[in-house]
């Protein structure tokens, strides 16, 4: 299941229209884009730089570069992907100035990104008749629709993402938070689908593990004692 592209709703104008309007200096078109994309851009920028303030400046600098560069936009990538490429380059330069150098090579998986993503102790040991099978099945989680939980779930997820290594955080932010496809992420970061998958896999497993620990502490009565499906 691919996350749905959330880049635009049905009434979001197509790229050709947006680009033409931007070139004409149409303020409404610019406002539309700034309001739709800046939040996600800030979130991604934050993975490259040290503070929220820096991230906000990266977003601002990116939009200025978009204004200056819109006449040379050729439409080979989508407008949003093009904008995000500018964002990533701006953020990397900024991160480097802050002594947080994130060279392209460090966006590639390292040894730590391989190996089991689920604690091997969760599975029966070698020699057992059912070696490699769950010692105990993962506990089913309470229904995510439960209103009392959703705020907490988001807080847990945000924290879990914030502590991931940069390369994992950047990829999971683009793929799962922003909903970009693996092709689009390749265009933005120049990371192959296979390398993205290594990072994404480990990142998702970490966030899932965080939610699992969280749900283990949630009392069933707190969620109304409902039988879980």
């Amino acid at each position, binding site marked *: *299941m*691919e*996350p*749905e592209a*959330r880049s635009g709703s049905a009434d979001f104008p197509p790229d050709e229209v947006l680009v033409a309007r931007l070139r004409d*200096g149409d*303020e409404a078109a*610019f*406002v539309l884009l*700034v*309001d739709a994309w*800046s*939040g*996600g851009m*800030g*979130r991604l920028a934050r993975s490259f730089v040290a503070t929220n303030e820096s991230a*906000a400046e990266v*977003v*601002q600098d990116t*939009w*200025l570069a978009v*204004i*200056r560069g819109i006449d040379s936009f050729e439409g080979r990538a989508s407008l949003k992907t093009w904008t995000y490429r500018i964002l990533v380059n701006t953020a990397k330069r900024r991160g480097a100035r802050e002594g947080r150098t994130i060279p392209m090579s460090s966006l590639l998986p390292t040894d730590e990104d391989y190996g*089991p*993503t*689920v604690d*091997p102790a*969760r*599975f029966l040991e070698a020699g057992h008749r059912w*070696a*490699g*099978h*769950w010692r105990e*099945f*993962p*506990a*089913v*989680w309470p229904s*995510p629709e439960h209103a009392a939980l959703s705020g907490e*779930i*988001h807080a847990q*997820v*945000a924290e879990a*993402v914030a502590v991931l290594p940069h390369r994992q955080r950047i990829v*999971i932010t683009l793929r*799962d*938070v922003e*909903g970009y496809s*693996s092709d689009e992420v390749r265009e933005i970061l120049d990371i192959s*689908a296979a390398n993205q*998958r290594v990072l*994404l*896999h480990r990142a*998702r*497993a970490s*966030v*899932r593990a965080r*939610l*699992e620990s969280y749900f283990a502490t949630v009392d069933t009565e707190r969620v109304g004692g409902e039988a879980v499906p």
Partner: protein
Amino acid sequence: MSDLDCNEFVELVTAYLDGALDEETERRFDDHLEMCDGCDTYLDQIRQTTQSLGSMTPEALPDASRQALLDAFRDWKR
């Protein structure tokens, strides 16, 4: 071809959701999924995890930055 073990299954979920498994491995994955409630739950939790990630709302741009950008856009237009 033998069935997958659960500890192999959990390492394939991302490739599976990306549609990146070869046909044979995907068949073994699906066969295992059908038989194993634990792995069914695990896959479902990975899906719930990606859904939670996708429903996080970003913070809006601060008003001052937004205004500065609109001013910059107006200036550029002239």
